[in-house]
Structure formats: C-alpha cells, structure tokens
C-alpha cells in the first residue's frame, strides 16, 4: 500500500504522465479523428481495423486516453495533498528559528550589535519590517528572542491553486461529457420547433444574410423568439458570436441552407425568327406558363439543380446544396404534346450550354427557333441553430479563474521570509538575521540590504 501511495505521489509519475499525454495527443493530430470507415480503409489499408480497435480514430474520447487523464488527476490530487500539509503548517504554525548559526548560512544575512536592551531593538526591527509590509511574529526562548517576518505567504500556495484549477477543469470536462445536451435545429422563417429535453420552443421570425460589398458574407442573423406554452417569452437576434441564452440553453448560429424543393426561377424566352419577341416569366418548379409566341408554346419548369453537374453516366446530378452552378430543367408543350426539353444555366459562362432537345424524332427542328435564359432564381433559406446545454461549462470557468490566480501567485506573488534572533550579551544586543526568497531573489536581496542598513545606521 505504501509503495502504491509512493508511486502516485512521485513527481516522476507526473513527468512520465505528462510525456505520455503529450505523445498520445500528438498521435491524435496525425490520425484524422472521427472519419468514416471507408476513409480509414483507403488511408491506412489493413492497419485501419487495428487503429479503430485501439480507438485511435476517436482517440480523445477513448477509454485509454480518459484513463490517462484520470491517472493524471489522481497524481495531481495525491501530489498536491502531500505537499499541502507541510505548507499549511508553515503558513499557520510556523517554526521560529532559535539557533542563529543556521541564519548566517542563508544567502542574505546580517549580524550586528546594538547598544540597547533587546526589547528596544525588537520593537525597532518590528517597526522597520512592518513598514516594509512584513507580518512579524516573535517568541521568547530563554535569553533569546526569535523573530519571523513574512510577506505574501499566499505565494507558496500558487501551485496548489493551479492544481485545484486543473482538477476543476477536468471535473467540468467530465460533467460536460456526461450531462451536456447538444442538438441542431433547422428552422425556416415562421417555423416553431421544440428544444430537445426542454419545456420550451423556439420560433424563427426572420433569417437574413448580410454581405460585404465584395460579396463575401458579413453576417448570418436569426431573429429568434422563445415560446413557453405557445406564448412568447423573449426575442433576440442571434448571430455567430452572439448566442441567445435561456434556462441554461444557449442557441448558436451555426449554419444555414436553402430550401431547394420549390425555388422560383425567372426565365427569359427569345425567338430567333422574331427579334422583337421577349417573354419574361417567373415560375416555381412544377408551374407552367403560356409563351404567347407564334406557335403557342407552353413552358413548364420541371426541376432545379443548385449545383448542376453531369454524373458518371452522363446523367444530370446535384453536386452540393450550394448554388455553385444553378440550372433549371424546362419542357415545352404544343397542343398538349411535349415537343422539347432543355437545361438552362444561371452562370453566364454556361449560357451557351443550354441545348434544346427534341422530345421525339418527329418534332426535330420545331424547337430550334426558341432560346431560353435562366436570369434569376430564388429559394428560401433556413437557419441552422445549435441548441446546447452544458452544465460543465461553469466549472470550466471557475477552474480557469483558479488556474490563472494560481499562476499569478506562483510567479508574481513571491513569499519572502526574514528570520532573526536577538540575544543580550554584556548589556548589548546582538542581532542575527537571515532571509529566504524562493523567487525574485535579487529584489529580495535589495530589500533585505535596505532594512539591514537602516538598522546599522540608527543609534
């Protein structure tokens, strides 16, 4: 048992754990995390099954990585506790040095004799030290007076506060992992949707995309209203970096998309034989309109592709949901009979690809008089929100505050100690003092010297 405790309290274990943790973390950045089985198979071949079995593809959530973090936490707890009790004793029940010899061994030390009784020298020294903001304790040991002066004692607890902060951060991480709720909510304008595991709903009143003059996106904004039992509670416009928070839930603007099912398209029709003819139509998919040309053609919009591409079998396909290459499929009818169909493109570079295809052999040539252009298209956008409730986050902020406080204490709140022994000999008082500073030794040396010379000067 003792050996086990000893193993956990050793700083060597901490060092080894930190190295393993760093190495494991590096491994996780070399192997892409959380991809599909196919991607791993293509990337690593036969090794991929081994990687997956060792949880290297979800490394930071793997049992062994979490175990490593757990071991690390345990090591921090044990190490900190072991060092804490002597420090606590040092802060609350300090041991005053009675033997002057050990004081002279300190880097900063002074030895002087004064023509005054010890009580006078003691009060003088105490006043000087108090002026320099030291807290002074004295004890009488027979003929000697032992004195201990300290400032910024909190500094010795810096590392403990850092460790406490880290433990709270780890605890926050566990709490987040176990209890956090996260869900994407797609909302078109006017939609009301329930928030997962909550007793309220959200409604999207308006979704807007703002652009910079160069056409890049400046902001996505969703006007949200929280509804409880169908009645509005509060409204806020959310954007990236500006979430709405209600009852522990936060709503983040994460993405957006287009409703491509029924976009409206503006089509211009021209006739080659009649330059004066121009017909502009705005239609939705599935709608039809009379062209009012000489041949009395009717045009129907059959479909729409936001990102048109010809697939492997030369079939039209949609590459993505982004309007990178919008195309509409139209059909022409005369006398109730389908005469032609065509793909027309919004992208000016592809206008020439708009080819008219005769619907059947006998109508070949009948369509060639007409030309179509896809001038505009409009589809409603929907907003994608992330609803998240993460009770662990508060622990994280407390942990972070302690972490920074601890680092501040450890590096910039140096504990300084001055110990002195006063002894009467032949009507005079001999003072021997020494000082220790774990940090900022030079500044401490200067301060010690200042106090010592003030004592030397005064008569």
């Amino acid at each position, binding site marked *: 048992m003792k050996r086990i405790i000893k193993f956990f309290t050793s700083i060597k274990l*901490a060092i080894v754990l*930190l*190295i393993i943790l*760093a190495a494991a973390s590096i491994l996780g950045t070399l192997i892409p995390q959380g991809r599909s089985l196919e991607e791993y198979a293509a990337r690593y071949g036969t090794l991929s099954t081994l990687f997956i079995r060792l949880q290297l593809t979800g490394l*930071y959530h793997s049992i062994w990585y979490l175990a490593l973090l757990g071991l690390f936490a345990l090591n921090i707890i044990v190490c900190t506790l072991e060092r804490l009790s002597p420090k606590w004793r040092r802060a609350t029940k300090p041991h005053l040095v009675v033997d002057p010899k050990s004081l002279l061994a300190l880097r900063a030390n002074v030895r002087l004799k004064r023509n005054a009784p010890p009580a006078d020298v003691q009060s003088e020294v105490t006043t000087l030290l108090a002026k320099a903001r030291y807290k002074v304790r004295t004890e009488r040991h027979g003929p000697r007076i032992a004195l201990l002066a300290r400032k910024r004692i909190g500094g010795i607890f810096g590392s403990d506060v850092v460790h406490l902060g880290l433990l709270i951060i780890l605890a926050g991480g566990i709490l987040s992992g176990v209890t956090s709720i996260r869900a994407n909510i797609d909302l078109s304008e006017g939609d009301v949707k329930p928030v997962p595991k909550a007793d309220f709903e959200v409604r999207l009143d308006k979704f807007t995309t703002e652009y910079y003059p160069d056409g890049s996106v*400046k902001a996505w904004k969703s006007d949200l209203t929280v509804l409880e039992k169908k009645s509005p509670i509060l409204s806020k416009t959310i954007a*990236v*970096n500006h979430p709405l928070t209600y009852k522990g839930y936060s709503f983040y603007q994460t993405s957006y998309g287009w409703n491509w099912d029924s976009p409206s398209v503006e089509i211009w029709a021209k006739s080659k034989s009649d330059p004066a003819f121009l017909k502009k139509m705005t239609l939705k998919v599935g709608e039809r309109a009379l062209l009012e040309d000489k041949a009395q053609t009717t045009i129907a919009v059959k479909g729409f592709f936001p990102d048109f591409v010809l697939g492997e079998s030369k079939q039209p396909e949609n590459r993505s949901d982004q309007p990178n290459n919008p195309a509409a499929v139209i059909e022409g009818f005369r006398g109730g009979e389908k005469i032609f169909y065509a793909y027309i493109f919004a992208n000016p570079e592809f206008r020439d690809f708009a080819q008219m295809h005769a619907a059947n052999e006998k109508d070949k040539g009948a369509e060639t008089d007409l030309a179509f252009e896809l001038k505009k298209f409009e589809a409603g956008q929907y907003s994608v929100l992330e609803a998240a409730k*993460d009770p662990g986050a508060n622990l994280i902020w407390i942990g972070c505050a302690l972490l920074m406080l601890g680092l501040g204490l450890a590096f910039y709140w140096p504990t300084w100690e001055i110990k002195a022994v006063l002894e009467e000999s032949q009507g005079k008082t001999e003072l021997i003092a020494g000082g220790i500073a774990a940090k900022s030794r030079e500044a401490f040396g200067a301060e010690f010297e200042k106090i010592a010379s003030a004592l030397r000067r005064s008569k």
Partner: protein
Amino acid sequence: MTESTIFLLTFILYIISAFFYLAFLFSKKPDRAKIGSVIAIVGLVLHTAALIVRTVESGHAPFTNMYESLSFLAWASVLAFIIIDKKFGVPKIGPYLMLIAIGLVALASSPLMPKDVTPLVPALQSYWLWLHVSVTLLGEAFFAVAFITSLMYLTAKEPEKRDRMDSVSYRCVAVGFPLFTLGGLVFGMVWAYKAWGTYWSWDPKEVWSFITWVVFALYLHTRIVMGWKGKRSAIIAIIGFLAALFTYFGVNYLLSGLHSYV
C-alpha cells in the same frame, strides 16, 4: 504614409538594428548594442504605427490572416526582447532576436502571404479576437526569447554567461507561460464557447496548444520540483518553443481543423 511604407521602414530599421547588434557581438563594444537597442525601439514604434494604420484601414484587429499575424508576432518578439533586455540587461540576445524578427517580417512581406485587407468572416467578429490572439502571440514571443537564450546556453562556454542565460530563460518562461495559458487556453476556451457553443473540440490547434502547454509544464516541474537546470532545462525550453511554433504555423499548413482562418 501608407501601411506598406511604414512596414518597409520598420523592416529597414530592424535590419540596421541587427547590424549594430552583430557589430557588438564581434567587437564586444557595448555602445554598439546601445545603438542597436535604440534603433530597435524606433523600429518597434514604427511597427506599432503600421499595425495601428492597418487596424484603422481594415476596421478589425491586425491578426486575421498569415501576413498580419506574422507581422504581429515579429512586433511581439521585439517588444518581449526589449522588455527582457531592459530588465535583465542581456544585449547578447539582440543579434539573434533581431534576425528572427527580420525573418518574420520578410516572411510576412513575401509574395506567399496575401496582404489584401479582407473583410472579417462572421466567426472572427468578436472582441475575443483581440484578447485571444494578442495575448497568445505575446506569450509565444516570450517563448521565442527563451528559445534563443536556451540555444545560447547550449553554445556558451563561460560558466557565468551560461548561468545568466539559464536564469533569463526561466524568467521568459515565467512570463510566457501565464500569458500563453491565459490567451491561448483560457481566452480560447471562452471564445470557443461563445462562437461554437463548446469550449473544447479537440481541434488540432487546440490539441497542439495543449501539447505546448504540457511541454512548458514539464519545464517548470522538472526545474522547480526536481531541480533540473542548465542543459536539460534548455532542451525542454527549445522543444516547447518548437511546439508553440508548430501550433502557430505548422497546424495551419499540415493539419486541417476549425482554426482555418489564419
């Protein structure tokens, strides 16, 4: 004056400063280091002006693309050096640090780095951009100074100079580590929580920040608890800076993730 003119003048001043520091290195005449230091300070003032002009022109923080952030890192490194030199009197770092600053400015000016002022994407429109990036890069600048002093420790022969370099390295880490923790990890987590709804996503940049942090934690524990000094400390500080450099630079080009802005 336009930003690019001021930036060019800064570059020239850094070169002149490096020249004087190199002259000091070879001649051992302290007045050359003094001139080098004054010119570096003038260069830093101009560099500050260039960053301000950039901020006013673009309307956002001057570290949203690689050009801007390299320039800012150079600025932070010169600032860190001037502070360390004022406090501990180590002009010998001068030539190496000014060479690094020149390298960073040259890299920023190279045609590889687009210099256009681009509008800020929605994710970066936050005051946390200022806090997160500036404090992190300032911390990394102190790591850069520690890197130089550690290398100088390893190459120095006189015991006195070695002690001095060892102690200055530690002082730099003592400044850089809290700054890096605050800017990189704490501010990073707060911002991630505000922008993405999660304070930690194990994104490669986050992981590498954590790795950098672990390396410097190792530096501090081996030094303070186990009493390591000198050579071993210097090697850890060098590894730590390289990790920080990879976090800043390598992750963008070699690993993909959420931090694909800069």
